[in-house]
């Protein structure tokens, strides 16, 4: 996780993608990944690490850590980070535009069709059939995510508490997320026995 080891100058030497190069790379990433999220990571790695060697593997891993720690779609976050690292603000904007454009265009076409054909009996029937399948996909996903996430009593308590808040009290999801983040922060500072504010100076010391 030592990104400061890489001098910005050596990164520029490593590869010099133009904003349009970044745009096309992320356009193909956005166009060929279904289901979103983590499904996109292997494709992004292939495009940026293997094919163009714009990034090294350890840089790519750091990138994922930041993308997961921020809100928003993971693919868009990856585009922002990779684009910024490789081409500053222009690069970030070009990469985000590339990652977003395929689903934007495709969804406009689909929406135009769907909203016109919504009452067609065949379309109705197809979607009636698909809905329980979507529920099944979500059950499968939540099982996987739950298994990898809920590994401590605290995590289980947060999950259970959040379910109660969401379904029984019908609290707004934003409030539930903020509360969970605060609990995480409190637990983190309790565990390290160091208040979060003072750890900045420690980290600076580690870097030298």
């Amino acid at each position, binding site marked *: 996780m030592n*990104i*400061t080891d890489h001098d910005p100058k050596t990164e520029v030497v490593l590869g010099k993608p133009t904003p349009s190069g970044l745009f096309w790379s992320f356009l193909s990433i*956005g166009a060929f990944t*279904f*289901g*979103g*999220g983590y499904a996109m990571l292997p494709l992004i790695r292939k495009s940026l690490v293997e094919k163009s060697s714009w990034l090294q593997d350890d840089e790519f891993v*750091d990138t994922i850590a*930041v*993308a997961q720690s921020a*809100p*928003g*779609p*993971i693919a*868009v976050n990856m585009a*922002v*980070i990779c684009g*910024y690292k490789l081409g500053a*603000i222009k690069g*970030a904007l070009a990469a*985000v535009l590339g*990652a*977003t454009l395929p*689903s*934007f265009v495709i*969804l*406009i076409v*689909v929406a135009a069709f*769907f909203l016109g054909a919504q009452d067609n009996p065949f379309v*109705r*029937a*197809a*979607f*009636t*059939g*698909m*809905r*329980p*399948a*979507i*529920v*099944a*996909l*979500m059950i499968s*996903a*939540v099982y996987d995510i739950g298994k990898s*996430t*809920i590994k401590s009593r605290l995590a289980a308590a947060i*999950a259970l508490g*959040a*379910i109660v*808040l*969401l379904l029984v009290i019908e609290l707004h999801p*934003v409030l*539930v*997320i903020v509360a969970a983040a605060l609990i*995480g922060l409190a637990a*983190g500072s309790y565990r390290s026995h160091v208040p*979060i504010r003072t750890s900045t100076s420690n980290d600076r010391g*580690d870097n030298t």
Partner: protein
Amino acid sequence: MIYVQLFKTFFKIGLFSFGGGYAMLPLIQKEIVGNYSWLTLAEFIDLVAISQVTPGPIAINAATFVGYKMAGIFGSTAATCGVVTPSLLVVLTLTLLFVRYNRLESVQAAFAGIRPAVVALIVAAIWNILPPSIQAFSSWVILAATLLAIRRFRVHPILAIFSAAVLGICLYS
């Protein structure tokens, strides 16, 4: 004005959706179905189905779809810009901090709390979309068969969804 409303609503969705994918659904539902009634609950589930068989992140798909329904292509543009902007701002800030201080501990501590809540968000989403998804006994059969297909036989989700659509056409039209 509808464009501003679309931008603001999807900005909020982008800002508070962690974990991506399904974890975004309760928030999208609360805002789009609950607060604004831009979609019915049934349309919302259809949107999830569409998102699964089209490429790209679910949040972008949702923004484009809802924006288009409410205000055409410009609506799509407003909503999509709204959902992407928080990513740009937050991630750029994080990248700058990360590069400067090489420190992400507090963000990761917060995220350690958010992750189990994401599980709860998906459970809540399932709970909410279950009733309108079950139209007949055959719906339960499709649900169970899909679960079996993707867990036991590792069928690709897109193939599973298309099979369910074909079954739906055979059963319900």
